[in-house]
């Protein structure tokens, strides 16, 4: 089944799915292959998000198609490495701004996280 046609404008690409967002984050500083991305995301989220191969490569396929990441052409052990494209960097920043704005709106209404952090007793 074909993917929906890629959007032409930047803001049509937003919002990113959490998976896509995490993959772009993982590729900010270095090129990685699929397994590297899984490890990076798992480490960053403290193991809360473990991408399976199906979801990972579906997201990669979509990001490649959108032109946000690209195949580096470098391959060892049969695995392709991906890098963040300039467009990807722009979209990542735009998505971060979008999320930040949302959070600020929430804070403005007085909504603060009430999750207890480990080691700190609730008064």
């Amino acid at each position, binding site marked *: 089944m074909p993917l929906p046609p890629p959007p032409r404008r930047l803001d049509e690409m937003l919002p990113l799915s959490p998976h896509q967002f995490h993959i772009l984050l993982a590729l900010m500083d270095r090129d990685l292959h699929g*397994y590297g991305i899984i490890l990076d995301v798992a480490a960053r989220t403290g193991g809360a998000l473990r991408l*399976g191969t199906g979801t990972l490569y*579906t997201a990669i*396929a979509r990001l490649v198609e959108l032109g946000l990441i690209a195949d580096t052409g470098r391959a060892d052990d049969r695995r392709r490495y991906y890098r963040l494209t300039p467009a990807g960097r722009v979209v990542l920043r735009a998505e971060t701004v979008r999320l930040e704005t949302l959070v600020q709106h929430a804070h403005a209404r007085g909504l603060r996280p009430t999750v207890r952090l480990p080691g700190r007793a609730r008064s």
Partner: protein
Amino acid sequence: MTTTPTPTTRVARAIYRALLRVSPQALRGSYRADMIATFDELSADAARRGAVAVLALLAREVLDLTAARALWRDVGHLGPWRQAARSLARRPGFALAAVITLSLGVAMTTALFSVVDLVLIRPLPYPDAGRLVAVWEASPSTQQNTSLIAPVRLEEWNRMSQAFDGLAGTYTENVTDTSGTEPERLSGRRVTPRYFAVYGMPPLIGRTFTADEERYGGPGAVVISEGLWTRRFGRDPRALGRALRFGGVDFVIVGVVPAAFSTSSIDVWLPAQFAPGILLGREDRFLNGVGRLKPGVTPAQGAADLAGVEQQLARQFPKTDAGWAATVRDLKDVRVGDFRRALWLVFAAVLLLWLISVANVAGLVLVQVHRRARELAIRAALGASRPRIVAGVLREGSLMALAGGALGAALAAWFVRLIPQFFGTLPRITEIVLDRRALGFSAAASLVAALFFSLWPAIVATRGSLAASVHGGGRGTAGGRHRLQRTLVVAQVALSVLLAGSAALLIRSYYRLSHVDPGFDPSGVVTFHVGARWDEDRTRVGQLQEQLVAALEALPHVTSAGLTNFLPATGATLRFQVSVAGLHGTEANGAMPVGWRTIDFDYLRTLRVPLVAGEWCPAMGPDGNAPIRVMVNQRFVQLYGQGQNLIGRELRFAQGANQPNTIVGVVGDVAEDGPGAPPMPYLYACLPAGAWPDPEYVARTSDPRAFAADLRRIVRELDAARAVFGVRPLDSVVDAALDQPRLNAEVLGLFAASAALLAAVGLYGLFMLLVGESTREIAVRFALGAERGQIVGLVAAGAGRLLAIGLGLGVAMTLAGGQFLRALLFDVSPIDLPAIVTAVLGLAVVAAGAIAIPALRATKVAPVAAIRTE
């Protein structure tokens, strides 16, 4: 970074590759290699944490790949399928358990059905195989219903019978090929004319025998098997026209037959080329018969036709042919023979296990639906229509079913590859392939079951007053509800008892069988063959046998050595009728049916068979005129001796004008017909060396390893062109006779263990649910001062009642089912108290473990929870 694959990761990768098929095709097309490489890394990580972690990874990937399908369809949009996948992902324990249970059920049923279909249902691999029959001579009056056939009679049957397209015969003749650098022993068959035509399977390359090659004195020709062609000639078509060399004579390879042609590992087929003399011997019966019936003729009609032919022959040859007829049986039935019952047994066990697994999945789904009853009710109250809620539950069910089906198919493909290792003795097992119909059926049935069990409770949960569900949450007591689930648990326990009880019966039977005294001492005895042909010069073969046995007995580590035509418990026996003057046998004509073995001077002593009376076989020279000395076993004396002294008495064979035999000794009963078979009267003929050219040699040695080397050296010195083969401990021969009972017991034991495990999971799920639902009730009881022990007792009593009903039903089913096992049992009654007690206790222990966790959880309920659950 490359990781070295281990067996576990290799299997995991094979399953993953199969699973990739459920992922979207466009994704697979571009990213397959990357996905496999990534999975390899993940599975290597998981493998370091153990096999369970690998299994968990696989199950997660199943769900993930299935979810990817939905993701692919609507990227960025949370569609209903993705919602269902998310909902499942929030309950990973449940989803994993359901997917693994479903997939195991599908895989085992499919794999075993593939075996049953191959061995029992599918026709033999010959054209129009339904017309192929096995044929024997039969003499009803002497109870020989499956006698081998004399070549002359086979020719006459072919000429005179109306019911057959053709009849052919074959006998075993193993040969030693000396055309290569080393002598190689090949397993061979001599075949009569029409043999290949009867089977009707064309050769792979080349041709079968011409009339010229089948005639006595014709040119040497050989048809070889696909296996030998591959092994020796690398499937080179130029093998045709080359020659194998047997006994110094060249046999030109004229054709290669496909592997499917023969059930056992036969290497070569040679034309029988009977000498005219052999075609005169009306009582020389040594051919295994096979025939092709004319279209529309049944085996019974074929037998009647041959009986008519025999009546005509009896008028012509009253002395030899009177009273003889023929037995004709479907070839497939004959080949499957002994395995039929065991296979159906295994298949029945698998079906039971499959039922249990379906019941288990149903139970798991029910637990979930009950847990979610409030959630569903709230969603309904918020405006979700009933069809929409039901559709959501159905979607989750189908996702699990799809995932379970996919993993099941992958596992089934793997099981089918493993099966030949476990069931190597089954006929045609090398032909096994995954049966797609079976896969389709068991997968579809599992899916329907999973869907049904998700649908039904969803409908019930949303029926009637939804508001009542919202208000009623948590108020239920442990009694009266979840009737379907209770029924399922009871059924699971009962079926598990049936499996465990049957397994216990077979294990006890196997134990008894393996501890029967065989009447001889196989430990420390080595048996082997030395290649020799029947048409060789007997004097020369005889000299070789004598020299070999003498040289072996001269070895420091050999106590004694000897030879016989057939070893005990190998299923091979020649049976005759004999008479002793002054004694009356069990037959109407006074004859005594006996099994017959040829032995030499030291054979029985090498096996440490006790001498009861008289003396051992004398050492025999090639002296054909003296009366043949024979020994008889104790059973012979009991059955026919009438309390008289048999030593020195003369014994004659009922058929043919054989020379008299003198009884010289009586030995203990040996399990000649296999362990567990009642002892039959046996005659041990002390024959001169060379009388049986290709005997089984035995030697008692204290150093089996040195023995094998010394044996080869001695044979090389005596005759360099002879192959030594089949060197193995006699223990393994006796063990092989127990293969079938051992297999039965092991397989059923395995199923019983799996069933008990599944039933335990069912019990655990049910009582976790019940305890969870009764939290309020339990808390109130605590608040009213109940002791922990009382609470545990409350939970345990509820579980105990279900368990007791299940166990009771199971025992009843085991007692009823035992009747079907009767034929497989040795020295164990189908109503065997220890076996049933073991099964019940084993299951009760496992079930108690499953109940312990929910019971303990109940004691952790704080009284304040009575308020909180609201």
